[in-house]
């Protein structure tokens, strides 16, 4: 049975990754999950300098999921290179560093520093709905996305994955812009912008007013968008959005994703990533799938 998949020349032992921002840099969840079992650890977004993030409350539960507006708090790329990446090199898993920024120069600075690190790939976060400057501004207009993808691609020594926002009119336009600017892959979906109001206190539950929605309720939206993008571009897709089980992951693969990422499920079940790996293998055995690549995009 083969579970290996390849994206931009990087081979993953299986298609299961962590979704950026839900897994730190792996250290916390290594108490619950054998990181060696994962296709890749995708780190929490890191910027050229430390970011404080948003005021609290930053998280809220909603029906079928949650809202978050962490605001990309992170210790900056230097700490990631000194502390987090050396930790991850102890494991036999691929490492994808998620990079965020407020300006093109921020992204470039972080990518240039990370160029000589042990990271296997970069995922470029142009789709966080919770920071006011930059980030999503690059991910909601096709020409801006093309521009930043092109500039990062010119300096990056590693393959890049542009992470797309679902908060757009037509996600295939964004996928095409990323592809034509040279992105090696795309990942989707980032969270869907949402809002929750506390009707007793007459206040927003999240201090940022809006937050990104994730969790099982967003899965049908994400599967649809992965399917649309798979029909629009030739570069590989990493699909995510509400994956809780191996069966959920199989849906994304059939829609056209080459790999998947597990996000909010980590908060609901700290062993979720490993459970998804095992669930995929069980599906392959019971459905006599010899090679995982057979089912990628098999539903037309």
């Amino acid at each position, binding site marked *: 049975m083969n579970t290996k998949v390849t994206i931009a020349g990087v081979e993953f032992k299986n298609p299961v990754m962590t979704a950026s921002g839900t897994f*730190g840099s792996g250290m916390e969840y290594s108490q619950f999950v054998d990181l060696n079992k994962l296709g890749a650890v995708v780190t*929490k977004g890191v910027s050229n300098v*430390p970011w*404080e*993030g948003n005021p*609290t409350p930053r998280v809220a*539960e909603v029906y079928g999921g949650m809202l978050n507006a962490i605001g990309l708090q992170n*210790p900056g790329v230097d700490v990631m290179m000194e502390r987090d990446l050396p930790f991850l090199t102890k494991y036999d898993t691929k490492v994808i560093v998620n990079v965020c920024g407020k300006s093109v120069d921020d992204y470039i600075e972080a990518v240039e520093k990370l160029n000589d690190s042990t990271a296997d790939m970069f995922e470029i976060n142009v789709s966080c709905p919770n920071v006011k400057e930059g980030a999503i501004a690059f991910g909601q207009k096709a020409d801006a996305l093309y521009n930043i993808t092109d500039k990062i691609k010119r300096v990056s020594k590693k393959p890049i994955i542009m992470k797309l926002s679902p908060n757009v009119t037509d996600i295939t336009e964004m996928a095409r812009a990323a592809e034509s600017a040279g992105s090696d892959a795309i990942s989707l979906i980032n969270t869907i912008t949402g809002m929750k109001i506390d009707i007793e206190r007459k206040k927003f539950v999240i201090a940022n007013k809006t937050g990104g929605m994730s969790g099982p309720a967003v899965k049908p939206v994400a599967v649809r968008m992965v399917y649309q993008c798979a029909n629009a571009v030739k570069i590989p897709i990493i699909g995510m959005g509400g994956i809780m089980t191996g069966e959920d992951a199989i849906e994304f693969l059939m829609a056209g994703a080459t790999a998947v990422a597990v996000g*909010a499920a*980590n908060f609901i079940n700290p062993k979720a990533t490993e459970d998804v790996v095992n669930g995929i293998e069980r599906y392959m055995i019971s459905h006599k799938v010899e090679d995982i690549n057979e089912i990628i995009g098999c539903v037309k």
Partner: protein
Amino acid sequence: MFYRNIDEGKVISQEEISSGIFSLWIKNEGAKHANAGQFVGVYPNSKDTLLMRPISICETDASEGKMRLVYRVAGKGTKEFSGLKENDSVKLLANLGNGFPVDEVKGKCIVLMGGGIGIPPMLGVAKALKGEDVHAFIGYRNKDLFLSDDFLPNCKVYIATEDGSVGVKGNVIDALKASTGLKPDVIMACGPMPMLRAIKQYAAENGIKAYISLEERMACGIGACLGCVCRTVKKDEHSHVNNTRICTEGPVFDAEEVDI
């Protein structure tokens, strides 16, 4: 005593000890290893709810491997927990957070302060410090007291009620001020944010070391999501910004180190 796992707990007993306040005894592995002031994440079963509910550990019986959670029904998750019966299974993320530094304060004059649903973890602290010079100030809205009798075998107890129906009228600081002659070296406290702010200020003005237990909405409970941070005076070692994780570096902080 670091212990971190997904515990399959078994309910020993549950009772409503005051209106909307429930006392739940659970048998679980984490109970053998808990520090006073730590908390657990309790997973609801209902698919209406997904995230664990962080609940402070009220007390433990390490030899019997059981822990007591005293919580207020505040929403869908805690409403579900209030229906748990003897022998029901309950999944816990245990044990979370740091707890109060009980070993560091022995030999000193120690004041414990608990307000409302912040009272339960202070009972565990009182038990851990039994035999020391401990004075527990516990504050309620009115005469619907809970846990006050449980403190009695462990320390001196002073009660404050907002309406004055029992003990000193006012809050726990009013009750401390009314106890002339008591000069605490250390305060340890848990309760609503206005109370903790007042304690931080009172401790600073009177040269008293204060440890306060904070709460915040959280998702992962183990330091990965950065949902539950509080502002810090100095840059936090993990985050390298003036925010620290309540679930991991806390929930108990030296009051001087947090900007609340």
